[in-house]
């Protein structure tokens, strides 16, 4: 090729190459690198995994096999923690909230975000009571806790959540991390006929969560674990 044409072709290639380079660099700057560290179970890791799935954000879903070896390196000797560009965020709700707020699954401002986190706090509280009841070994205490759960805690929170429903989901027609969290905590409880009848709107939200394409896809492809929690 004659030198001028060669130069033109070279410069076109050069500008395309640098344009794609910039785009890649920009993409890498924009999208943090995430690594979720947890055991190979659902439990406290699953909410953050659900948030990543629904948001369509890539992350490394690291599942610890040798806990004794890894424990000293966990920020507080506990899991889950989320590594974000080398920084480490400890705690399941803290991690889920960070990803949700960064990737469109939360509110529009700090007040809305705090209000949502407050609801999740109540949901997490309920889950703790649920597990305390489930794992209580003393028969008398267990009976007492079960009674409290069935007569007080479950109706209270389901009533509040049911009243909150503002569309297909809790806050309108788009899902937030609170819907995902509520699904994980209440999905089994909600299968009860009585619950379906009494808290129909909330149970409807859970069905909508289940039908979200990204959530469906995640639930189909996620690792099958030994424990059903």
């Amino acid at each position, binding site marked *: 090729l004659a030198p001028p044409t060669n130069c033109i072709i070279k410069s076109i290639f050069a500008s395309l190459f640098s344009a794609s380079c910039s785009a890649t660099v920009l993409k890498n700057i924009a999208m943090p690198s995430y690594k979720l560290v947890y055991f190979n179970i659902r439990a406290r890791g699953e909410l953050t995994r659900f948030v990543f799935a629904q948001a369509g954000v890539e992350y490394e879903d690291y599942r610890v096999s040798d806990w004794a070896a890894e424990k000293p390196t966990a920020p507080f000797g506990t899991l889950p923690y989320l590594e974000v*560009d080398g920084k480490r965020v*400890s705690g399941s709700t*803290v991690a889920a909230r960070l990803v949700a*707020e960064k990737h469109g699954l939360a509110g529009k401002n*700090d007040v809305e975000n705090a209000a949502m986190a407050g609801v999740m706090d109540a949901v997490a509280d309920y889950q703790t009571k649920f597990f305390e009841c489930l794992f209580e070994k003393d028969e008398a205490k267990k009976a007492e806790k079960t009674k409290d759960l069935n007569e007080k805690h479950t109706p209270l929170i389901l009533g509040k959540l049911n009243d909150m429903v503002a569309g297909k989901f809790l806050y309108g027609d788009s899902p937030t991390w609170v819907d995902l969290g509520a699904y994980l905590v209440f999905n089994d409880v909600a299968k009860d006929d009585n619950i379906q009848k009494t808290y129909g709107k909330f149970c409807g939200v859970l069905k909508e969560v289940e039908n979200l394409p990204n959530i469906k896809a995640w639930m189909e492809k996620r690792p099958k674990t030994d424990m059903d929690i």
Partner: protein
Amino acid sequence: MSYTLYYFNGRGSAEAIRLIFAYAGVEYKDVRYEQEEWPKQKPKMPFGKMPVLELADGKMIPGSMVIARYLGEKYGLAGADAVENAEICGIVDAMVDLAKEGGALFFEEDKDRKEKMLKKYLDTTIPSLFDKLNQLCSKDGYLWGSKLTWADLAFHRAFEYASAHHPDKEAILDKYPALKTLRSLVEQNENIAKWIKERPKTKF
């Protein structure tokens, strides 16, 4: 007044919030319900629990750590972006178990259970948390970064939870020199010192 804080008449899980208000010099209505009033007030709370923070527009935010975080971030006691704020929150999250166990200990009536719980609290819960916190604090004197954040105020509360059940309050932090210094630093702040001196003296 823009803010109203609702809680029982005690420190409990509201005190970290009150420390943040005090440190930041922000006024608020400090509503305290006695046990007898609680059944009447319970339905007014978003999820039947306290603490709750009511904002100027009437919005009610539940969850002690959620409220503390909201105020901490609003009043300059946090990081520069979402990830830093999450790091700070993760540190406070690690203190929650100690607070929960401390609370459970306070209310446990069965002597045998209480004894077992106390042993775990003193031998395992407190040391493993304070060990990690001390490591964090040893670098720059604060739990996160090189400035005071709401995590440091939350730590002061965690220290109070630990000392409530410890046979020798003043000695708890002997093994954790950086935390000992941090505790003094917080208490010597003019606003905090004033609050600690003037706050209602309560059982919990």
